């Protein structure tokens, strides 16, 4: 139920005014329908975030928002670097879960007769599902290199092209990573998981950019989406067991130190510590290690995707122009400079189920994105497709943040009651989407009807001027954990 105190600002913006111990109001981006569809806990959680020390301007909720633990999913909070806190709950267990999109010069006609062969090969070659192990064998020293250098190390060791780096958020490496701040348990969980998808909503998908689904020709062209029915691909995954353990370790540590810093525990999943405290700094250093592992993970998967296409089409990935368009993080904390009421400030930007959306101004120096803005990759359900958006200079209003996906509107168990994985696979096959999954129940949990309408989510952010629609991509093949 929508809280009584909510104020409608315009067609797609709502505010919960500051009251009690809130430092800032809550701002929600949503149509009335999307707002009504949000579960009650979203509002409580967004208010709890507004209570956190050092939060600036607003506790934001994106239109794909739904309740998580501690922070809502689709939550954005910028904390003052000196006065504010850092919270593992504001980042999520899957640190640097994110999206990666690549383009090809193939068209649907080139791929349609080989889609089964291609998806079967991808499913065989990219480890998916519960506790899957990767194919990159690393010793501890090498894994530490990945923690500190991210995608760079794996590219230097043969898993990608040098030019991939310029098309990854933060060039595939968050500064400040320190492996000494990561537990042995986290290393044991993650060392064998580079190059693996995992399960849940993670996927690798082959898509088509239909002519009628291109909203902005100039930007699509600049991003190498130039021909009708051009084939693209997308990867959605994160830091696997490594990041999950880092998050669990520090969630517990912070609960123990909160009383020392005089921080009230509103919700155990909202555990936090002052960013400038030794514990806060340690978590940021460990989180950066996990974020860098995730960039490396998606890089190795991209490499495998290129290999599989190459094998099936008997052409080199270079010849098929399998260029990385961009890689974005949607569960992360980053240090960014922003204007707060005309004062420049350094903030610890928490984005949990939210994506950075830099406009052209912030992408100065990038050969393409300084004109178009940063690509934002919005992953949809495997039935409805995904979107590529471009960040605008107006995104400064939300500390350069936008939505991340369709957002769930139905629980996993409810989805499983409505459809079986096998039936869904068959239904999608009839619609021209060939899917392989490590788990039929997992497949059913990700059915399209379990998600909000992705089109209304991206429309809200377009109307708010934060991101603009470039193209929507229709799935034709998908592998899932």
């Amino acid at each position, binding site marked *: 139920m929508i809280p009584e105190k909510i104020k409608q600002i315009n067609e797609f913006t709502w505010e919960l005014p500051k009251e009690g111990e809130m430092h800032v109001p809550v701002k929600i981006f949503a149509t009335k329908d999307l707002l009504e569809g949000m579960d009650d806990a979203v509002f409580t959680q967004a208010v709890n975030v507004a209570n956190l020390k050092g939060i600036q301007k607003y506790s934001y909720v994106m239109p794909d928002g739904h309740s998580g633990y501690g922070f809502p999913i689709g939550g954005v909070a910028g904390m003052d670097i000196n006065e504010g806190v850092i919270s593992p709950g504001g980042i999520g267990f899957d640190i640097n879960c994110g999206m990666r999109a690549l383009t090809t010069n193939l068209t649907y006609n080139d791929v349609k007769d080989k889609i089964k062969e291609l998806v079967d090969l991808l499913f065989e070659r990219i480890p998916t599902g519960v506790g*899957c192990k990767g194919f990159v064998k690393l010793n501890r020293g090498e894994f530490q290199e990945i923690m500190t250098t991210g995608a760079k190390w794996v590219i230097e060791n043969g898993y990608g092209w040098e030019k991939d780096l310029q098309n990854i958020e933060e060039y595939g490496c968050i500064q400040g990573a320190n492996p000494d701040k990561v537990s042995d348990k986290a290393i044991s969980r993650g060392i064998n998981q580079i190059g693996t998808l995992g399960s849940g909503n993670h996927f690798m998908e082959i898509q088509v950019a239909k002519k009628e689904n291109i909203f902005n020709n100039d930007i699509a062209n600049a991003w190498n989406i130039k021909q009708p029915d051009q084939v693209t691909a997308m990867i959605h995954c994160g830091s696997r067991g490594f990041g999950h353990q880092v998050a669990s370790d520090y969630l517990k540590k912070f609960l123990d130190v909160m009383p020392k810093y005089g921080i009230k525990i509103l919700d155990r999943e909202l555990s936090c510590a002052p960013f400038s405290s030794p514990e806060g700094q340690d978590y940021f250093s460990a989180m950066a290690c996990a974020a860098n592992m995730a960039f490396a993970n998606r890089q190795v998967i991209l490499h495998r995707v290129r290999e599989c296409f190459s094998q099936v089409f008997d052409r080199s990935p270079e010849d098929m122009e399998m260029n990385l368009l961009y890689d974005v993080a949607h569960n992360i904390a980053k240090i960014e400079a922003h204007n707060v009421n005309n004062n420049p400030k350094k903030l610890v930007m928490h984005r949990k189920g939210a994506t950075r959306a830099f406009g052209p101004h912030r992408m100065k120096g990038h050969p393409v994105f300084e004109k178009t803005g940063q690509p934002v990759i919005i992953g949809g359900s495997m039935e409805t497709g995904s979107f590529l958006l471009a960040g605008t200079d107006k995104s400064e209003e939300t500390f350069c943040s936008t939505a991340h996906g369709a957002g769930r509107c139905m629980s996993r168990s409810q989805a499983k009651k409505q459809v079986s994985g096998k039936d869904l696979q068959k239904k999608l096959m009839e619609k021209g989407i060939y899917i392989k999954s490590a788990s039929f129940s997992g497949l059913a949990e990700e059915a399209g009807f379990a998600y909000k309408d992705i089109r209304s989510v991206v429309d809200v952010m377009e109307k708010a001027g934060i991101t603009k629609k470039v193209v929507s991509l229709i799935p034709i093949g998908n592998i899932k954990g």
Partner: protein
Amino acid sequence: MSFKYIEGIALAEAAFEAEGKDLKELFEACAAAFMDTSANPTSIKSVIQKEISINAKDVESLLYNFLEELVFLKDAEAIVFNKVEVTEISETSVKATAIGDKINKEKQELRADVKAITMHMFKVEKTDAGWKAMVVMDI
């Protein structure tokens, strides 16, 4: 010994409530819920045995750390389990044997990868009938 999944706690996750007449039954019921979420236990052979030993400051931390150990073994050693037997238990210490097999998606009916045991609504309480727990897993 029993557990049941609960809906409407958090949309993207899996929550369960478990009961037992004593702590042994409660911990085994919680382990059963974790195993059932990860894979169909009947599709897993009994090949590998792991000994688990956890100490904690109170019964809540004990259950939390015990379940986290199962999550850890799933990733670090790539094992899925079909049986967990608690051999010794108090409110601050537990010893258990977990039995299962190396993960193999061709041979086993795998389900969801549990990323973490969360503290969201996490609760262990004594009841008239014994013990009860509420757990939300991030998947």
